[in-house]
C-alpha cells in the first residue's frame, strides 16, 4: 500500500493581536498627547493598510469606469469590481454572485428592499414586523413604506436584558405578517438575536425575512444559505472596508420578482422612449457608476479578514468583551445597559456621576474614543427610560490593555464629577 500523506488544508495564520495592530495605521497615533485607544468600531472599524492600498491602487492604476469601455484600464477595473462581488458572495456563502447587489451600505440596502420589494408586494392591512432593538435605519424605511401602502408596523418587544425572545416574536407574528426586518446583532447593546430560529418561524407563516447585518459581519459567522434569510444587508466600513460601500444579498427569485430601485445607466439593457428593457441581476439594481474603489476595497477587507481563522478572531473579541464587562461592572456607580446572555463586541453603560456626553469628552481627553448618545436606536433608549448611553465597542485589534485604559479614564470621570 502506498503511504498517503494526510491532506493538510492551508491553515490561516494564527491570531496574533499585536501583528494585527501593526496592520492598522490609524491605531498608531496620539490624541490629546495620549496614545489612541479606539473603542468605537461599532460606529466604524479602522482600516488595515491592505485596504487603504487597494483603494489607492484603483485610483493610481485602474482608474476607469466599469462595464463600458473596451480599453485595458476599464477591463482591469471591471474585473477587479466583479472579483470583489465574488469575494462578498463567498464570504456570506450566497449561492450565486448574481444575488449580491452593491449598495452604499446597510441603509441603502434596506431602502432598496423597502422601495422595490415593499411597493410591489405589500398590500393594505399587511403587517411588517420589526423588533424593539432596531437601529433607526431598520425602522424608518418600513415606517415610510407602511404609511404609503396602508400597512401596519408591528414591534416585537425586547426584554430588560436586551434580548428578543422566541415567545415574544411568535406572539406578534400573524398571517398578515408579510415581512420581518430585524437586526442580526444590536448596535446599541451588542445582543445577538436567535435569527435562525426566528427566520424558520417567519417562513412557517409565509413571511419574507430581511436581516440587518451591519453589526454582525465581523463578529459572528454569516451564512445566508444556512440562515435561509431572504435578504441580508450589510456595510463594508464596519468590516474593515471603506465607507460608502455595502451590499444587499437577496434570494434570486425574490430579486427577479422586484422592479428596479433606481433608474439610470448600467441597470438597463436597452432604452427607447417607448420601452426600456432592464438589465439582468444584479445590475438591474445598480444604476449609475458605482463606488468602484469602495467595492474593491471591500474585497480587500474580506481578503484581510479571511486571512485569519474567523473562530480565532471571534474568540479573541469575546475574551476582550468578557474582560471589559467584568472590569466595567467593578467600576463604582456604573451600570451596564444590555445584559443579554448572547452578546458580541459592544458594551453600553451609564455612570451615576456623569452624563454619557461628559463621560465621552473626559475619556477622549485620555485618548480613549468611545461613542455616546442614543446610537440611532431611540426606542432602545426609551425602553430603558434613558436618553443616551456611553458605548465601548470592539474590533479585532482591541486588547485588554484598551479596556484598562478605558477603566483608567473612567476614574478621571469619578475624580472630576464624584
Amino acid at each position, binding site marked *: 500500500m502506498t503511504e498517503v500523506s494526510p491532506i493538510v488544508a492551508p491553515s490561516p495564520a494564527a491570531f496574533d493581536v499585536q501583528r494585527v495592530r501593526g496592520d492598522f495605521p490609524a491605531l498608531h497615533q496620539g490624541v490629546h*498627547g495620549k496614545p489612541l485607544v479606539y473603542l468605537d468600531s461599532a460606529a466604524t472599524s479602522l482600516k488595515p493598510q491592505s485596504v487603504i492600498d487597494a483603494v489607492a491602487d484603483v485610483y493610481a492604476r485602474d482608474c476607469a469606469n466599469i462595464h463600458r469601455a473596451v480599453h485595458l484600464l476599464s477591463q482591469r477595473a471591471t474585473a477587479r469590481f466583479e472579483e470583489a462581488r465574488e469575494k462578498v458572495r463567498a464570504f456570506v456563502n450566497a449561492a450565486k454572485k448574481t444575488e449580491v447587489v452593491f449598495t452604499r451600505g446597510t441603509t441603502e440596502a434596506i431602502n432598496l428592499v423597502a422601495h422595490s420589494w415593499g411597493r410591489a408586494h405589500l398590500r393594505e392591512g399587511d403587517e411588517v414586523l420589526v423588533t424593539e432593538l432596531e437601529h433607526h435605519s431598520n425602522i424608518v424605511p418600513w415606517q415610510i413604506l407602511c404609511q404609503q401602502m396602508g400597512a401596519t408596523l408591528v414591534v416585537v418587544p425586547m426584554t430588560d436584558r436586551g434580548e428578543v425572545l422566541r415567545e415574544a416574536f411568535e406572539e406578534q407574528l400573524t398571517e398578515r405578517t408579510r415581512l420581518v426586518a430585524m437586526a442580526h446583532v444590536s448596535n446599541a447593546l451588542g445582543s445577538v438575536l436567535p435569527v435562525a430560529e426566528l427566520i424558520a418561524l417567519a417562513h412557517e407563516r409565509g413571511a419574507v425575512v430581511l436581516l440587518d447585518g451591519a453589526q454582525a459581519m465581523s463578529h459572528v459567522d454569516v451564512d445566508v444559505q444556512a440562515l435561509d434569510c431572504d435578504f441580508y444587508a450589510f456595510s463594508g466600513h464596519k468590516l474593515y472596508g471603506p465607507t460608502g460601500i455595502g451590499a444587499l444579498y437577496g434570494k434570486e427569485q425574490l430579486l427577479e420578482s422586484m422592479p428596479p430601485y433606481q433608474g439610470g445607466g448600467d441597470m438597463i439593457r436597452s432604452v427607447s422612449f417607448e420601452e426600456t428593457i432592464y438589465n439582468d441581476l444584479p445590475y438591474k439594481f445598480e444604476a449609475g457608476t458605482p463606488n468602484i474603489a469602495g467595492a474593491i476595497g471591500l474585497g480587500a477587507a474580506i481578503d484581510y479578514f479571511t486571512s485569519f481563522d474567523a473562530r480565532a478572531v471571534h474568540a479573541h473579541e469575546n475574551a476582550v468583551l468578557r474582560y471589559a464587562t467584568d472590569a466595567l461592572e467593578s467600576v463604582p456607580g456604573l451600570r451596564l445597559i444590555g445584559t443579554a446572555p448572547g452578546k458580541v463586541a459592544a458594551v453600553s453603560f451609564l455612570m451615576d456621576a456623569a452624563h454619557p456626553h461628559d463621560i465621552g469628552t473626559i475619556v477622549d481627553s485620555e485618548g480613549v474614543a468611545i461613542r455616546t448618545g442614543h446610537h440611532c436606536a431611540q426606542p432602545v433608549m426609551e425602553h430603558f427610560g434613558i*436618553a443616551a448611553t456611553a458605548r465601548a465597542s470592539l474590533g479585532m485589534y482591541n486588547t485588554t490593555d484598551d479596556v484598562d485604559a478605558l477603566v483608567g479614564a473612567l476614574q478621571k470621570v469619578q475624580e472630576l464629577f464624584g
Partner: protein
Amino acid sequence: MDLRELYQEVILDHGKHPRNHRFPEPHNREGRGYNPLCGDKISLRLQLDGETITDIGFIGQGCAISQASCSTMTEAIKGKTLPEVEALFSKFHTMVTSDEGADDLDALGKLAVFAGVREFPMRVKCATLGWHTLKQALGSEGGEATTE
C-alpha cells in the same frame, strides 16, 4: 487639553444642582429645547412683564454643560430686559464659538466660565441649548428649539 478649563467648579456645581429648576407660577412664555444628537432636553417657562423677564425656571435632563449653561442663564437673565438678554446671548455665543469675544468676558459675569467650551467644538451645542430654548420661548424662533 485641560479638562478643568471646560469643567470649571461653577459648571460642575450648576450641573449637579441646577438653579431655578422649577416651573415659575405665573408664567406667560414657554419653550422646549432638544438636542437630537445626544437627547438633551430642556423645558423652559418664564414670566415676561412688558420688556422684563421677571421670573424664569426650567426642567431638563442632559449633560453637565447643557444643564449648567441653562441654570446660569436663568440666573443671569432674571430681571433683565429683552434687549439686555439679546445682547448677553450674542456675547455668550461669540465667546463659545470664536476667540473674538475674549475682551467681553467681564460683561458676561458668571457666564464667562463657559469660555472653555470654545476648545471643544462638539460641545458648543450643549452650551447653547438653553439659550436657543429661551429665544424660542420669547417667540423669535418658532417650534421646538433644536440644535440641528
